[in-house]
């Protein structure tokens, strides 16, 4: 199994799956070309996340990440929720495999987008959160060994990184 027990738990029994029909905010990230796509819907009451639900097309890590984000976020104020980083999520999951750090770890981004969407609807202007990039990524990025360009077929976002070395 490529994943630890916490991840497998969230993958096998994902919390808060679904789509809130009359959501106050919706956030989507990713696309199926790269293998992961997440849609968060939120319900906000008194500036707090009363409910958070997600739909995820993606690998085990992506589903576990989504589930963990929904749990971390639920009940938090919007400002608190905006503080949740992808790193926090990975940490809460006991760490993600190196090659899944970038690719499947977009849950916080999706949540933030949903919150932004809610705020936009409320016409509270905000600076657009920067996406962490994500997308397809070579598994060697986190590796200390030189990426063997000729043999590893690194993904597009890493090609640059690899050439640099």
């Amino acid at each position, binding site marked *: 199994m490529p994943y630890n027990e916490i991840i497998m738990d969230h993958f*096998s029994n994902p919390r808060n799956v679904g789509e809130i029909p009359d959501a106050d905010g919706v956030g989507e990230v990713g696309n199926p070309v790269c*293998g992961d*796509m997440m*849609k968060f819907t939120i319900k906000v009451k008194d500036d707090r996340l009363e409910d958070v639900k997600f739909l995820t*097309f*993606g*690998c085990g890590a992506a*589903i576990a990440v989504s589930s963990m984000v929904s749990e971390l976020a639920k009940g938090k104020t919007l400002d608190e929720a905006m503080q949740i980083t992808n790193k926090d999520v990975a940490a809460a999951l006991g760490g993600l495999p190196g090659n899944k750090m970038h*690719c499947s770890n977009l849950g916080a981004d999706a949540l933030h987008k949903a919150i932004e969407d809610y705020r936009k609807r409320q016409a509270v202007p905000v600076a657009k959160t920067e996406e962490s990039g994500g997308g397809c990524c070579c598994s060697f990025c986190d590796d200390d060994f030189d990426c063997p360009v*000729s043999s590893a077929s690194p993904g597009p976002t890493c090609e640059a990184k690899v050439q640099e070395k």
Partner: protein
Amino acid sequence: MVKINLDYGAATPVDPAVLQAMYPYFTEHYGNPHSLHDLGEQPRQAVAAAREKVAALLGAKAEEIIFTSCASEANNTALKGLAAASKSKGKHIITCAIEHHSVLNPLRTLEKAGFKLTILPVDRYGLVDPEQLRQAITGETIFISIQAANPEIGTLQPLPLLTAVAQEKGIPFHTDATSAAGFIPLKVEELGVDLLTLAGDQFYGPKGSGALYVRRGTRLLPLLEGGIQEKGRRAGTENVPAIVGLGEAAVLAREKMAARSSSLAALRDALKEKIFAAVPHLHLNGHPHLRLPHNLHVSVEFVEGEALLLRLNMAGIYVSSGSTCTSQALKSSHVLQAIGLAPELAQGSLLFTLGPESKAEDAPYVAEQLSRITALLRQMSPLYHKYSKGG
């Protein structure tokens, strides 16, 4: 607990008869085949016998077989060795888009070193067009490498049609037959190939056993240089047990191929029928009938392959996928891209390969679990929700 391996393409167990044949060469007959004294005798004879056996599988001559440590080594040896030996003749190489990485990556390295590479496209079944091959050939073309069968989508290339084109122009033709060997007949004369790669661990032989057939008279410089094992074409102490095991696996393959393949194909067809009946929005990939007998490749719409794979694993069913998430390089399979499969479908791909322990009773359980798991994952798929609303 249920344990159903449907990923024999990743690894096969060593056939008990093969292991039995190998065993004495770890201890009793541990000698070096190159020793002039008695301890070299039995290993030397065993290696010679294994060479005959592998040659017989291919209808080749024993001296045309080079033993290697795996198919990747055989491919690297063939491609880099041909390129190095043919520099004066030209610099153009032809291959196709759905080759294994151990063909494509060495060729890309040669391209960086100044060779010109033509990568032929394939149709939606994965077939190379002989006419396109003909048009790709130039006066500079030094060799062609096109696989016998694709390890993912299972498609069999029309090799005789392709090699006929090469022969007309007198261009050496290599085929990576790694996933075909042991399952479909591979007589080099009938195929018309000049070099052929195979590996024992794909057909119940041991890991660490590979072979490269090189037609007599074909020029090739060695990749592993050193001692004069394999007549100077592959240095390194012979891995005698592995070679013996490969020989034994070749014998079994020759004797049992027809029976093995037809029973695997029957099991595979039954499995296909069951899962297509159980799971809506399923797509078959690869050619409908020009395919490996033990291979079934499908795309499950709206869900991602790794999630399917992990859930199936929890149900004791072992498969693989060509999705982005299941490749360590985090790209979806280049094969699925090359056949023009939509990205969402490529992400939901599942590869089933059957093997020695596959049983007819497995199919209903697999279909039932796949149906349950697919439904469950579709419930959390934004793509499926979109489709449901839209439909």
